[in-house]
């Protein structure tokens, strides 16, 4: 092997190693773009900047490490303002999730405050509704699979499947961006989950916002797409920041620029 090739290989390897470490515990890049959300502001398309998203939701094991390092988020110590009393209610104790929960299952029964702080302490943040919805439009092969009937039916099927919070991360499919479990495991917190107001009287909500049915007069995949999204928005609308749910976990995102900066350092 000529010294030139050897140098080249070393160089390439070092680049690979460097890039992997810069990816910060398994994050995947989601290339920005525009999309029309279910509840569009002024029925305009929304621009989503490129960002990096955790490949998996945060697990029990990861969250245990977090509460060890940040005792203020342990079950008995959390400020009452930040939790409704059911925070980590299935855990065995402050520093143990017990035998019943799998270390690799998504952590649930987490309030928005706790999820937000978890991400911040890692230099990340919670995804916005738009970022989350944008990343979750993808199936295995396409960035926007929302018009595929089979994809929507799959999501609807999951919404009906019982007790999926007990499954381990990575047990669903890897999507176009390389992200797992956006559908099929647990609901996920978003930074601005309550920015879309659902009054609870969903039929009235429909009247309020005629955009909801724009372009979906035809029966078909569009309707299914709206139905699946409706359910997510309905869920978000039923939450407050101190609520927790056995079926609600979270993952974090980071802007692309930060990572690029790190890269140049």
């Amino acid at each position, binding site marked *: 092997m000529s010294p030139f090739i050897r140098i080249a290989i070393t160089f390439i390897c070092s680049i690979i190693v460097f890039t992997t470490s810069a990816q910060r515990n398994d994050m995947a890049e989601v290339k920005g773009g525009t999309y029309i959300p279910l509840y569009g502001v002024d029925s305009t398309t929304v621009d989503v900047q490129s960002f990096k998203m955790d490949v998996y939701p945060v697990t029990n094991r990861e969250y245990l490490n977090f509460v060890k390092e940040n005792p203020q988020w342990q079950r008995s110590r959390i400020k009452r303002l930040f939790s*409704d009393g*059911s925070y980590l*209610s299935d855990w065995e104790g402050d520093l143990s999730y017990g035998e019943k929960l799998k270390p690799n299952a998504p952590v649930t029964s987490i309030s928005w405050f706790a999820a937000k702080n978890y991400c911040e302490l890692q230099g990340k943040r919670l995804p916005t509704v738009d970022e989350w919805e944008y990343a979750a439009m993808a199936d295995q092969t396409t960035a926007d699979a929302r018009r595929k*009937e089979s994809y929507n*039916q799959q999501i*609807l*099927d999951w*919404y*009906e*499947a*019982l*007790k*999926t919070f007990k499954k381990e991360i990575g047990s669903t499919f890897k999507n176009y961006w390389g992200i797992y479990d956006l559908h099929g495991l647990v*609901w996920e917190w978003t930074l601005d989950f309550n920015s879309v107001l*659902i*009054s*609870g*009287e*969903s*039929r*009235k*909500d*429909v009247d309020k916002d005629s955009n909801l049915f724009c372009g979906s007069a035809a*029966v078909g995949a569009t*309707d*299914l797409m709206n*139905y699946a999204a*409706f*359910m997510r*928005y*309905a*869920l978000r*609308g*039923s*939450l407050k920041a101190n*609520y*927790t*749910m*056995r*079926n609600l976990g979270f993952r974090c995102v980071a802007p692309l620029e930060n990572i690029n900066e790190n890269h140049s350092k």
Partner: protein
Amino acid sequence: MKINTTKKLVLRSTQLAGVASLLFSCAEKEKKVYASTAEIPAIREMTAELTSPPHVPTPVGKRKAKKLIVDMEILELESEMTNGVRYVYWTFGGTVPGSFIRTRVGDEVEFRLKNHPDNKLPHNIDLHAVTGPGGGAESSFVAPGREKVFSFKTLNPGLYVYHCATAPVGMHIANGMYGLILVEPEGGLPRVDKEYYIMQGDFYTKGANGERGLQPFDMQKAVNEHADYVVFNGSVGALTGDNAITANVGETVRLFVGNGGPNLVSSFHVIGEIFDKVYVEGGDLINENIQTTLIPAGGAAIVEFKVDVPGTLILVDHSIFRAFNKGALGMLKVEGEENKKIYSGELREGIYLPEGPGIQTMPSTDETPESEIPAKTMAEKMEFGKATFMQTCFACHLGEGQGIPEAFPPLQIRII
């Protein structure tokens, strides 16, 4: 702690009510007349008795209007649609239809809606008996693991549907989120011997009718209104065989019949009976001598009839393919003395045979669905055969193929 105190309070108040009624039984004869039902005072607190179908709670009788506590838990659960077919139901109180709520006019109902922590979705409740925005839906929107409380006064007597109204509304209803709430008039409905609770609903499954395994909800079929199952009380066979409702000859039977939909209107009929009375659409209007009564989706009716002769009465949606092919069939077994004057029993032909066995097709398609892999072992053959029998033959010819005398012939082969 809280529960204990409430229980004690309820106990004490019943005792007090008992003493008070003894003391003032004479004074009570002067009946107060209120300008509107909204002004009827609700005194004392009481926890409502909730029952699962086909049962109904004790009649209100002569009791005064009260503050009535209704504790309702929402459960998402997997159960059987018909032999070998599973379905994930969303329920009020663990059953489809949901628990029966019995109130009287003037009651102040404190409704406590609890969404079980294992549930995936937020839910709410719209009771058609409520006067107010959304029928309570707006105030009862509740996330899993939480409880919402709201209250309303029952102003209009009648039989009303309640249902979930969370987006997507159609899907929540299609999965079984409906039930009945009865508001009795002052003094209660006239006394009858037997009361039952029946509710029709249409279901939409990914697989065709009878396809085995866990069947997910099919949104497209629901939008197209192509029901795979139309059933009474949530599943095929919920009111047949051992689950049949019963009465004795000479008794008056009252059925509280609702229709949850989401799509289909019911032509409710009892084969072998005439309704003496129908409270049309569950309201004040009473129609008499009715054969079939129409029950709209999201509506109800009270039907009453006296059973005069023994036998099995068949409850159907008289849109008859729904009854014999999709499951909308129930049974009321009447026991007692024959009365040859009313019904001779001498005719050899069936009294009501809407379609001969020759017309009825077996539920099969040209292509073999994945779950229809042919049986390999004898045990499998027996099991699959039983499922087919339960699905196609059982409704008329009953579990042992014995049939119903004078209506559906027995299936046994006689060896000469």
